[in-house]
């Protein structure tokens, strides 16, 4: 794959109820990314936005964000999935050879609508919606129980993932304040309110408000813009069938195939030793274990045995991951930004020492139906 560089990024701090208007937040992110790269508006040749009509409360929601998102007199397109999918779209436009700078922004404000209620409308209206109340949390309950049942993993072990990520989030100044819990214990996680048994409140990524932005440039331009671009050396994407009943919920086949595709592009043979840090979008605590196993960091059912602390063998989500705040449409983009920070040494308190190669993932859908993964390498 031809090299494409990440030359700038910006992330607004996560808030559970932001004192921001929507447009101001988008402006801060897109302007901030340009400022970081030292570029001007006229350098942008294509804009990819990532929002969702239902999350924004209006139809064709990107037509209202032309000015603030940098799309004025530029070509613009919207991805109604995760921010990481918007990066794929931007990447493809850059690889087409027609564009020198792609600006990608994504995010929404979950404080403006009932997030988990909206997710009820994701089920099939003809067969499933009338039968039972199933949304992202209930389906996460299905998946967590199937995973625990198949591999004999206990709820305590899954709660450990939440503990690790919430503690990591406490070191990340941009994480959600409510999710920054430096003194949390496994008992706190298990005793927090039950959302859908066995999933408890602290195991679910808390929806919040944020917009993040990222700039992509082809190799030649990237080196002109910055001394230390981060290269996208591999990308993989795949999706599972829509119906929950068609899938083996104890695993995530699509993440496995996406990982193979990305590793193939980046020339990785042994992921657990060749990757220094992973930023995975886990909408629920157990998903981090499932993803880590599917990506080849551990054997099936042994995800909990990875030493995934910040100073561990393979740090996973040193920034706190999605459990440190999950702004719909931005979370995957933030995972990529956090991986970039690790590779450029800008991560501060949660910096992984000597990180040279990272993976970052995004997902969309119930039980991570559609997955995308990037391999990023430092210059």
């Amino acid at each position: 794959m031809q090299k494409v560089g990440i030359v700038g990024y910006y992330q607004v701090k996560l808030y559970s109820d932001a004192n921001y208007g929507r447009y101001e937040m988008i402006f801060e992110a897109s302007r901030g990314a340009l400022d970081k790269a030292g570029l001007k508006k006229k350098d942008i040749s294509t804009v990819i936005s990532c929002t969702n009509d239902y999350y924004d409360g209006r139809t064709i929601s990107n037509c209202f964000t032309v000015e603030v998102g940098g799309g004025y007199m530029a070509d613009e397109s919207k991805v109604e999935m995760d921010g990481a999918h918007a990066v794929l779209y931007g990447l493809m436009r850059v690889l087409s050879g027609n564009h020198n700078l792609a600006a990608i922004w994504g995010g929404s404000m979950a404080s403006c609508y009932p997030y988990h209620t909206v997710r009820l409308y994701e089920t099939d209206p003809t067969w499933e919606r009338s039968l039972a109340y199933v949304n992202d949390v209930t389906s996460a309950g299905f998946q967590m129980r199937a995973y625990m049942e198949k591999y004999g993993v206990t709820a305590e072990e899954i709660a450990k993932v939440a503990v690790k990520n919430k503690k990591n989030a406490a070191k990340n100044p941009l994480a959600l304040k409510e999710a920054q819990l430096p003194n949390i214990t496994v008992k706190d996680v298990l005793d927090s309110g039950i959302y859908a048994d066995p999933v408890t409140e602290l195991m679910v990524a808390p929806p919040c408000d944020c917009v993040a932005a990222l700039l992509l440039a082809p190799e030649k331009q990237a080196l002109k813009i910055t001394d230390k671009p981060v290269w996208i050396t591999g990308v993989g994407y795949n999706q599972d069938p829509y119906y929950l009943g068609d899938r083996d919920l104890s695993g995530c086949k699509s993440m496995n195939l996406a990982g193979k595709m990305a590793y193939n592009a980046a020339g990785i043979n042994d992921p657990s030793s060749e990757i220094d840090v992973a930023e995975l979008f886990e909408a629920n605590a157990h998903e981090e274990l499932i993803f880590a196993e599917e990506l080849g960091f551990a054997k099936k059912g042994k995800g909990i045995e990875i030493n995934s602390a910040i100073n561990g063998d393979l740090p996973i989500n040193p920034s706190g991951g999605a459990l440190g705040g999950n702004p719909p449409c931005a979370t995957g983009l933030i995972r990529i930004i956090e991986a970039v920070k690790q590779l450029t040494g800008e991560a501060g308190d949660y910096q992984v020492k000597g990180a040279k190669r990272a993976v970052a993932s995004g997902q969309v859908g119930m039980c991570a139906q559609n997955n995308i993964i990037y391999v990023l390498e430092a210059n």
Partner: protein
Amino acid sequence: MSKMTQRKSLDYIKKDYVRTRTLTGSWYLASYKFKFNITHMKPFLEKLKEKKLIGNQCSSCNRVFYPPRQVCGKCLVKPDKWVDIRNTARVSTFAISYLKDPETGEVQERPMVLVHHDGADTTSIAELNPEIDVKDVYVGMPIIAHWRDETVGGLMDIEYYDKFIDDSDDIRYKK
């Protein structure tokens, strides 16, 4: 890096200075007609009226779908065979959701299950008999479809799933 967007400090936000105004509104498409094909499931719906279950089978990969699917995603062909499916099933996986009545504040414990019917390769979402204690539910639990008295030819003809004792398990254990 320019200072154009730099805030003076984060305290700027923490103070009582209100930067936004909230406008309460609603955004919904008041009604929607979901139009879907029934050609591929007519035999299935007719059998439901007789309190019998069938699934369709892809003749390319031999997977049996319950409820019937229009297209087999794996092979991208229409499943063209019909197969009998027993009304007994097993709990494939489940989650217990807590639904709060907005008026009385009463919280209902309801187990949502993925049901794996005997003879089918896929599972479907369903609810259990509300009288079953949620603590007794387990993965692999044998269950049986409980039909409504009057069937209309839809999946809602199965009101819920009841517990039942699976004899086949006894035979296996005796061996």
